[in-house]
């Protein structure tokens, strides 16, 4: 689990790759389309897509000599589940903190 999360973090820790993920959430993209959309070179685009592919975040379909990239729908699930659970438990501890502060105030009679 930790290794998977670490590789996900690495793959996503780049503004261009995050933008790519955002675009890939909506539709499939070729390198040329993606490069134009992001305003970066095609070799750079290919490099970033390769990193996302290696991290298991995207799939590639070869179609008439063109590679179409798509987001793998389950790829972000492990990350998302831990984040959601962590956020929920953190909120619970926030409420506990408020409760503890209030209890101590009451005890002090103020």
């Amino acid at each position, binding site marked *: *689990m*930790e290794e998977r*999360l670490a590789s996900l*973090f690495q793959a*996503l*820790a780049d503004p261009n790759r*995050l933008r790519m*993920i*955002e675009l890939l*959430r909506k539709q499939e993209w070729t390198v040329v389309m993606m490069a134009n959309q992001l305003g970066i070179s095609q070799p750079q685009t290919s490099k970033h897509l390769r990193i996302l592919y290696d991290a298991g975040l995207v799939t590639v379909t070869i179609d008439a000599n063109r590679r179409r990239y798509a987001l793998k729908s389950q790829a*972000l*699930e*492990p*990350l*998302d*589940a*831990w*984040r*959601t*659970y*962590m*956020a*929920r*438990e*953190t*909120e*619970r*501890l926030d*409420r*506990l*903190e*408020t*409760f*503890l*502060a209030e*209890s*101590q105030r009451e005890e002090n009679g103020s």
Partner: protein
Amino acid sequence: MSTVKSHVEGTTLIMERLFKAPRQLVFEAFSTPAHLEKWWGPSGWETKVYSFDFKPGGIWHYCMTCVDKEQGDFYGMESWGKSTFIDIDPYSRIVYTDAFSDADGHVNPDLPVMTITNEFLDTSEGTLFISRSEFPNEEALQQVVEMGAVEGFTSQLDRLEAIVSQ
């Protein structure tokens, strides 16, 4: 705001938090039903404790009800939990299992049971609270998260961006 640290080890989430409160009070927040009812449930949800037998093998049966109309479909929804205490070391440690149940206390066999270990430690700055939530496997984590999606529907991307910008 207190220090918050959290990390994942395998299928266990470990969270640490320093509370500026005496250890006895922090422990009692977890071991007194009247206290638990005041802070346990998510905001907009009321917690009612139906049974609380604070000893190894004892049962803690509770219900959280959404009382906030703003929460749309969740309004009026009930979520029953049944925990079994496994080990208790007064003011230091509480170990229990956490399961989904119904109003009669029947555990839902299709949903995962988690094991929670809470530790309470004295430090010069207050009470260090360490909580471990252990899931039987990754699928269990996914199920638990889906069961309690009460904190709103933040998009995956919002969360990703928050992580990356940290």
